[in-house]
C-alpha cells in the first residue's frame, strides 16, 4: 500500500536494556541522518525501570516533514540489542514486524537460527555487537556499535556522518576523548561488517486498526483505585533476563559463610536445608555482588549467551 506523504520515511526501532546505550544509539542515528540532510526525529521511551530493564527508542528519517510522533508500531529496521529480550513477552520486540522489516539481532548465532527459533518474518541480520564492544571499547555499551549497524542498513548514511554523529553524541554525555575514539573505532568495524545496505525498500503496511471504542462503567473502588492486594508479586516479572553475566556458585568449594546471601541486594540468594546458598536465576539481575564479595572466590561469572 503506497502512501505518498510518507513515501520517503524510514522508521527505526531500538530494543535494549536500560544502560546499554539504545537511547544514545537512536540519537547517533538521528544526528547522522540530520547531517545527511534528512528530516529527523528521535526519542526514547522508558518506564519506571532503570538499568537492565527493557526499554525502547525510535529514530525516524525522511525526505519530507515527518507527520508522526512517539511509538513506532511497525518498523522498517528493528534492532534488538539484547538477545535475551527475544524471549521476554513484556519487551514485545516483534511488535508490528512485517515482510519488509529488517530485524537486527545482537547475537553470535546465525540469522537462520534466529529465524528458526522465533519465526521472525522479513529479513534478519545478526552480528555479535557485544563481542565487538567488549573487544574494542572494553565494556558492553552498545550505543555506537548498534547505531553503526543501523546506519549501514539504511543505505543513506555515510561513514563520515556516522563518525561525526558518534563523536558529537558521546561528547554531549561527557565521555572521555579516549573512550569516544574507541567507540568510533568499534562503530566503523560494525559499519564494515554489515556487507551492504538493505537492498529493498518497502513501504510499511498500514496499521490494521480493528480496535473499537468501549464505554467504561463504574467499578467498585477496590478495582477502581490503584492499590495492590497481591503480596510479593514482583517475582512474576522474572528479571533474570536482565543478566549479562550469570553468577555460578561452586558448591563443592563453598564454605557456607552466608556472605553472598547477606549481600544480595535483590533477595535472589537463599540458603537451602544444608546451609548452601542457592541463586534464583529466574530473578537474579546479574549484579555480581556475590561474585565480587565471595571471600573464598568460589563464585564464577558466565556470559549469558542465550536466555531464550
Amino acid at each position, binding site marked *: 500500500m503506497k502512501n505518498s506523504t510518507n513515501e520517503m520515511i524510514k522508521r527505526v526501532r531500538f530494543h535494549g536494556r536500560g544502560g546499554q546505550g539504545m537511547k544514545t544509539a537512536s540519537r547517533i542515528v538521528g544526528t547522522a541522518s540530520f547531517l545527511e540532510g534528512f528530516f529527523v526525529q528521535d526519542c526514547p521511551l522508558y518506564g519506571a525501570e532503570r538499568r537492565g530493564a527493557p526499554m525502547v527508542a525510535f529514530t525516524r528519517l525522511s525526505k519530507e516533514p515527518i507527520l508522526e510522533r512517539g511509538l513506532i508500531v511497525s518498523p522498517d529496521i528493528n534492532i534488538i540489542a539484547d538477545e535475551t529480550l527475544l524471549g521476554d513477552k513484556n519487551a514485545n520486540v516483534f511488535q508490528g514486524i512485517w515482510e519488509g522489516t529488517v530485524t537486527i539481532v545482537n547475537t553470535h548465532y546465525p540469522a537462520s537460527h534466529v529465524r528458526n527459533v522465533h519465526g521472525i518474518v522479513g529479513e534478519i541480520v545478526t552480528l555479535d555487537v557485544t563481542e565487538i564492544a567488549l573487544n574494542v571499547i572494553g565494556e558492553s555499551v552498545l550505543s555506537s556499535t548498534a547505531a553503526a549497524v543501523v546506519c549501514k542498513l539504511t543505505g543513506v548514511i555515510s561513514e563520515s556522518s556516522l563518525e561525526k554523529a558518534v563523536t558529537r553524541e558521546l561528547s554531549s554525555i561527557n565521555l572521555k576523548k579516549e573512550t569516544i575514539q574507541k567507540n568510533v573505532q568499534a562503530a566503523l568495524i560494525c559499519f564494515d561488517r554489515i556487507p551492504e545496505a538493505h537492498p529493498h525498500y518497502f513501504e510499511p503496511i498500514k496499521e490494521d486498526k480493528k480496535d473499537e471504542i468501549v464505554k467504561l462503567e*463504574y467499578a467498585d473502588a477496590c478495582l*477502581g483505585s490503584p492499590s495492590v492486594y497481591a503480596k510479593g508479586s514482583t517475582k512474576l516479572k522474572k528479571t533474570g533476563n536482565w543478566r549479562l553475566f550469570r553468577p555460578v556458585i561452586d558448591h563443592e568449594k563453598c564454605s557456607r559463610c552466608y556472605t553472598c546471601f547477606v549481600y544480595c541486594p535483590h533477595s535472589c540468594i537463599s540458603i537451602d536445608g544444608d546451609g548452601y546458598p542457592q541463586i534464583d536465576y529466574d530473578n537474579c539481575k546479574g549484579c555480581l555482588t556475590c561474585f565480587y564479595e565471595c571471600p573464598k572466590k568460589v563464585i564464577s561469572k558466565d556470559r549469558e549467551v542465550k536466555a531464550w
Partner: protein
Amino acid sequence: MVKEMLTGNSAAAWGARLSEVDYIPAFPITPQTEIIEVISQWINDGEMNAKFTNMDSEHSMITAAGTAAATGARVFSATSSQGLLYGYEMLYNVTGWRVPLVLVNVSRGLSAPITLEPDHNDVLSARDSGFIQIHAETCQEILDTILMAYRIAEDERVLLPVLINMDGFYLSFTREPVEVPGKDEVSKFLPEYNPKHAFFKASNPMSQGVAVLGGSAYSYFKYQMHLASLNVLTVHDEVAGEFKRIFGRSYSAIEAFKIDDAEYVIIMSNSFTIKGKAAVNKFREKGLKAGLLRLRLIRPFPSNELKTLLKGKKAVAVIDQNISPGSGGILSKDVTTALYHEPDRPEVILSFIGGLGGKDISHAEFNHIVEEMEKSIETGIVPETQLLYTKNDLDQINNLLNIAGKTLEELRN
C-alpha cells in the same frame, strides 16, 4: 435538638463532632482557625473521642488526613485560601487514593495582593481535583452538609473526598441560629465508616497509591474518578431525601428561588446569594419576573437539573465571585456549556464578576444586571464579561492611589 447562636466555624466544628470523626489533623489559617480551636478544646475536655494533631503545614495536614483515611479512619479537616493552595498537590493525591475524608474550605481571596475577605478562586482552583464540592449559604447548611458529606463520600458508588465551602467572615465569623441535631438522630442517619477497599491492618497487607505507568491504566483510574463523581448526582439526592426525613431540612444540588414563573434568572453561589434573593424580592415588587438559582453542588456539576430549571427562561446572568484572568468567570462557562444543547434554552446568558475579595454587591449592581439582561433581549447582543464595579468603588480606589503616592491621571500620562 437544640437551637443555638453559632458562627459558621462553630457549625462546622459541630458537624465534625456529630459525625463522630476519628481524626483531625490541623493547621491554622485565618479565617478557619475557630474550627480547629473549638474541636481541639472539645477533645481536650473529653467531649469528643477523636485524635487531634497540630501539623506543620497544609501540605502535611492534607497528607495526614489522606493517609489516615486510607488507614480506615473517618477524617475531618479545614483550611482556607493560601492553605488550600499550599496543600494543592495533595488534593489530587487523596482523590486518587479514593478516600472519603471531608475538608472544609473557608473562602478567602488569593494573594497577591494578600487579603482576608472571601471570593472563590481558592476553592474553584480545586474543581478538577476530583473532590466533590458543595458550597454553603448559611451556618445551618454548613453543619447539615458535613453530615451529608460523610454519607455521600463513604457511599460505595462514590468513595471520593468532599470539599465544603463557606465564605470567610460572612459565614465563618457570622452567628446565626443553628439547629444542632441530637446524637441519636445523627447515628440513625450516618453509619460507621467501614472501608472495604482501603485500610491498613497487619492481617491484610496492601499497597496503596501505587505508581501507574502506561496511559491505558492511568486513563482507567482517572476516568473511574469521573464516574464516581457523576454518581454523586444520584447519591446526593438520595442522601438529601433521607436527611429531610430525619431532620426535616431539605437540600438540593441547585437551590431554586422564585424560579417557577421567572423570566430573568440570576445565578450565584455561597453566602452572597442572600443579597441576590433580596434583589429578586425587590424586582418582584416592581413587577419584574425575577428568580435566582444558587449552585450548591459544584462538582459534580448538575447540568441536567440546571437545564430543566432554566428551560424557557428569557435571560440568565451568572455572577462569578471569582476571576480567571484572560477568560472571565469560571462558573459561567459550566452554566453555558450545560445549556447549549437545550433547544428551549434561555435567549441570552450574561456573565458578571462581582464580590471579589469580599467586595459588596449592592442593589445598584443587581439593577445593572437586570438592565443588561433586558438590553440583551432587546438587541440580541450579549456583552462581554463585565466587572460589577461602581462609581463609588472607583472613588475609593482613586483615594487609595492618591495616598499611595500615585493617581490614575498620573498613570495615564
